[in-house]
């Protein structure tokens, strides 16, 4: 029997349910907070699976409430899949190749049951050359881009993704690379797009990354998506790493060539620690690679320096060429009026002066000799490629 002592521990155990044997007992006085945590961390599917196998014993009212919440979450997932397939057909008609990332693609390929893996939005990857056409298609099908690009051409040069929303509130992150910041710039999305597979859904054959690309995406999302890795993305890593179709040699080669060792190692270590899950030997070998200083600096930008413009500064450091760096800083510091209006409309404080403070702070810090190009000074903007 697992000895559960607090809500965080309960959630970790439920997030790893099925990876280990052993009963997960949640004290009744904690159940309300655990249920809240299951909902907010999208862990209801794993909890229901554990409840049904008896690994998570609940009394009937607790089980009913859990199922009720999970029903709502699954209805949302189905609505997203409906919309996804309608868009899938629209993109296909226009000759735009779209790859489904995360959510539905992991739910239907690496989990034993897609009901175990809820999702609340949609992530689509397109090649940079299809970027504008894909944005137009989303607009034609009722989606509005949440924020315009800071300046014309920023998306294709430096951007990671743009969020689009429709009237129902469904959000689609249209990607041209997997992650924001330096790691997203270092990896080659075109190579990922050469290694794809499909999954069957709604009578269609939907494109996704192959097992190796899917694992890399799961790893980067888990390791870099938030300052501290979240449980469901870590479970994605564990599930994806169990796939016999992963080409570990290719993953190791990509990790080395694209300077991703720090990010991959961080995600693998977090998966092992948080889920007590022993990854396959090749994953441990990839994690044991000695890191380059540039990778260490880049990694810090996503973790302890994330909230202080760290990703933007690390992105600038990763952009090759002084001219391109200057363009990046200028685009972020002096974005278009349309961009500024959109930021203001979203209730975000937006002024050119405040935006200029960010690079000014970088320069001031550097001139004081306080730590070189990877150091960060506080400021408002600075979400890197997301602007």
């Amino acid at each position, binding site marked *: 029997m697992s000895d559960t002592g607090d809500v965080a521990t309960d959630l970790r155990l439920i997030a790893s349910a099925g990876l280990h044997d052993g009963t997960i007992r949640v004290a009744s006085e904690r159940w309300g907070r655990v249920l809240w945590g299951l909902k907010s961390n999208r862990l209801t599917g794993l909890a229901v699976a554990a409840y*049904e196998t008896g690994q998570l014993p609940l009394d009937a009212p607790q089980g009913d409430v859990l*199922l009720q919440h*999970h029903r709502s979450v699954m209805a949302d997932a189905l*609505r997203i*899949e*409906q919309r996804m*397939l*309608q868009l899938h057909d629209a993109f296909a008609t226009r000759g735009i190749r779209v790859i489904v990332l995360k959510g539905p693609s992991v739910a239907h390929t690496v989990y034993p049951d897609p009901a175990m893996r809820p999702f609340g939005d949609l992530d689509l990857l397109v090649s940079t050359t299809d970027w504008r056409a894909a944005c137009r298609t989303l607009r034609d099908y009722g989606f509005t881009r949440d924020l315009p690009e800071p300046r014309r051409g920023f998306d294709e040069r430096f951007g990671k993704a743009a969020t689009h929303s429709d009237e129902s509130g469904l959000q689609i992150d249209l990607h041209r690379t997997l992650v924001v910041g330096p790691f997203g710039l270092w990896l080659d999305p075109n190579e990922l797009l050469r290694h794809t597979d499909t999954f069957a859904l709604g009578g269609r054959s939907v494109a996704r990354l192959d097992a190796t690309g899917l694992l890399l995406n799961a790893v980067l999302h888990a390791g870099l998506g938030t300052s501290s890795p979240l449980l469901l993305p870590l479970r994605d890593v564990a599930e994806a790493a169990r796939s016999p179709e992963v080409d570990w040699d290719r993953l190791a080669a990509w990790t080395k060539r694209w300077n991703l060792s720090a990010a991959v190692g961080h995600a693998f270590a977090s998966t092992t620690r948080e889920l007590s899950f022993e990854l396959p030997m090749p994953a441990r070998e990839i994690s044991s690679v000695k890191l380059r200083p540039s990778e260490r600096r880049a990694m810090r930008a996503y973790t302890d320096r994330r909230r202080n413009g760290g990703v933007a500064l690390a992105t600038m450091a990763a952009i090759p060429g002084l001219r391109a760096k200057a363009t990046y800083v200028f685009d972020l510091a002096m974005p278009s009026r349309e961009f500024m209006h959109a930021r203001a409309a979203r209730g975000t404080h937006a002024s050119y002066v405040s935006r200029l403070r960010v690079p000014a702070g970088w320069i001031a810090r550097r001139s004081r000799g306080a730590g070189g190009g990877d150091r960060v000074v506080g400021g408002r903007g600075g979400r890197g490629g997301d602007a």
Partner: protein
Amino acid sequence: MSSIVTFGRSQRVLWRRVGTEVLVADPDASGISGLSAPASAAWMSLERPRTRDQLVDELVGTFGVTADEIAGHVERLLDQLVERGLVVPVIAVE
């Protein structure tokens, strides 16, 4: 020559099982619906295509009733599921 009719899930249908209930969605429409308890049980049994009699046998075990009691219900249930496009009949000629 004789023919055997089996019934299987339509590959077009989006669905999830939540407890004993199955939620279904048509990808070319909006809206989600929950199947009734017998329909959900039938859906889960149709993971592999089955004849009407095979489905009756499956559901007898699930609901603890006799085949005679349930046969008529299963017939109507299959008609409804086929009409809604959720289940497709496949005719094999032997």
